[in-house]
């Protein structure tokens, strides 16, 4: 099957639940699917007869996911594709993890860490990196180095 938006092969088949027993199927390639997931849901409203459906989506959204710091809801984020503040990353974390996985193919940072980051944050980030490293070392059967990494993880975990 071809992607509905470009000539590529559709690899993702999304079923949007539009309300009571109303579904819409979307067939997209990976790139278009990524874009689709960020698109304002409101666009669907433009379709004739679909207006009440958009309202239903709004009502169906879990009311609990609202950032206590800046007040935006997860739905607002989905509609605009932009966060309101840094705290959103914690407030919406359960919803964000699958999104990060689909956009980046990963859910944990593995790069530079600010020198001023609080010790706990630095240790946390280092832990994340070490766990990834440990995983790949085990896969590569490099057990000697893996043991060293494991010890360092233990050290960080207890400190």
């Amino acid at each position, binding site marked *: 099957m071809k992607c509905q938006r470009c000539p590529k092969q559709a690899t993702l088949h999304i079923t949007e639940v539009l309300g009571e027993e109303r579904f819409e199927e979307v067939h997209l390639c990976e790139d278009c699917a990524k874009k689709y997931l960020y698109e304002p849901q409101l666009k669907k409203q433009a379709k004739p007869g679909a207006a009440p459906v958009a309202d239903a989506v709004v009502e169906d959204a879990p009311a609990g996911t609202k950032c206590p710091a800046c007040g935006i809801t997860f739905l607002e984020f989905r509609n605009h594709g*932009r966060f309101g503040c840094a705290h959103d990353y914690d407030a919406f974390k359960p919803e964000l993890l699958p999104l990060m996985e689909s956009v980046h193919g990963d859910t944990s940072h593995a790069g530079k860490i600010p020198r001023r980051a609080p010790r706990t944050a630095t240790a946390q980030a280092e832990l*994340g990196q070490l766990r990834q490293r440990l995983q790949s070392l085990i896969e590569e059967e490099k057990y000697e180095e893996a043991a060293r990494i494991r010890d360092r993880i233990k050290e960080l975990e207890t400190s």
Partner: protein
Amino acid sequence: MNLDTLLPNLGEWLRGTGPESDVVVSTRIRLARNLADYPFTGRATPAQKTEIVSKVKDAIARVELPFKLDYHDVPSMSVLDRQFLVERQLISRELAAVLEGPRGVAFDVKESASIMVNEEDHLRLQVLRSGFALDDAWADIDKLDDALESRLAYAFHAQFGYLTACPTNVGTGLRGSVMLHLPALGLTKQIDKVFRALQKINLAVRGLHGEGSRAFGDLYQISNQVTLGKSEQKILGEIKEVILTILQYERQARAVLMKERKQAEQDRVARALGTLGSATMITAEETMELLSVVRLGIHLRLIEDVPATAVNQLFIQTQAAHLQKLVGHALDGEERNAARAKYLKARLRDLGSHR
């Protein structure tokens, strides 16, 4: 600093030198950073944006950098000046014309480093280099980032890394872009094949002016899409690898052109120079297409007397805002086409008189 003083300069990314400069025009790295104690720009009040601007200005003034950065306020800048900075790749179209409220840009006199304030993220650091220089650019921007970070508390998350307004930038906040001139791959109709291969490995291809812009004059920007889960070195390493492959393809295509249709290429280059030097009306698009032919001609040594930097000079100076600054007043579309033709004719005559 009056922006007009920049007019005769080429800026770092158009120097036309640096590694692999027969194919690679320039290298750019940008880092997205946000301050810890404010909402992202899109949700910040004008008062908060003013505070962010003054904090950043203060940090820039206090940190030690290898170059001096001058801050320019965007809201108080004329539309023409804003467009001028967009053409020089120092600010984004969004910062120039879409976003509102207190915002600005700091950059050095060589135009090799810039910091946009209150763009989509509070800070957008950028380093430009001519030619293929990802490692140098990274070394520079890493230092700039460290220096700012010693004065500013960044929003950083133990799991997600540097936090950004859009989740597509989170993690490293790094976007590395390499601008390539690929006329031979275009001529031999191989360009689509190359780009299809790129998309499979999550690299984006864009035109000269970034997202959504068409590729004029065979210029393409290749950049990473993934910012989370890979270290900066790994991201840059992946770009590097791909660029080296494309470089090889383009050079092979050029070799084939020289072997199979040298005469025809020579003719195309001569005609391009002829049109540039004799037209009385010419659009920016046509100018870029013709300059692309001339640029290829220089690197194939089909013409000896036009230096590569002259092509870059013509390329930047014939863009809308530059042209209006050169002429000294506003021009509408038709007037611009006439002024562009007049400028090209005069400059090429100058070049010719040195022959």
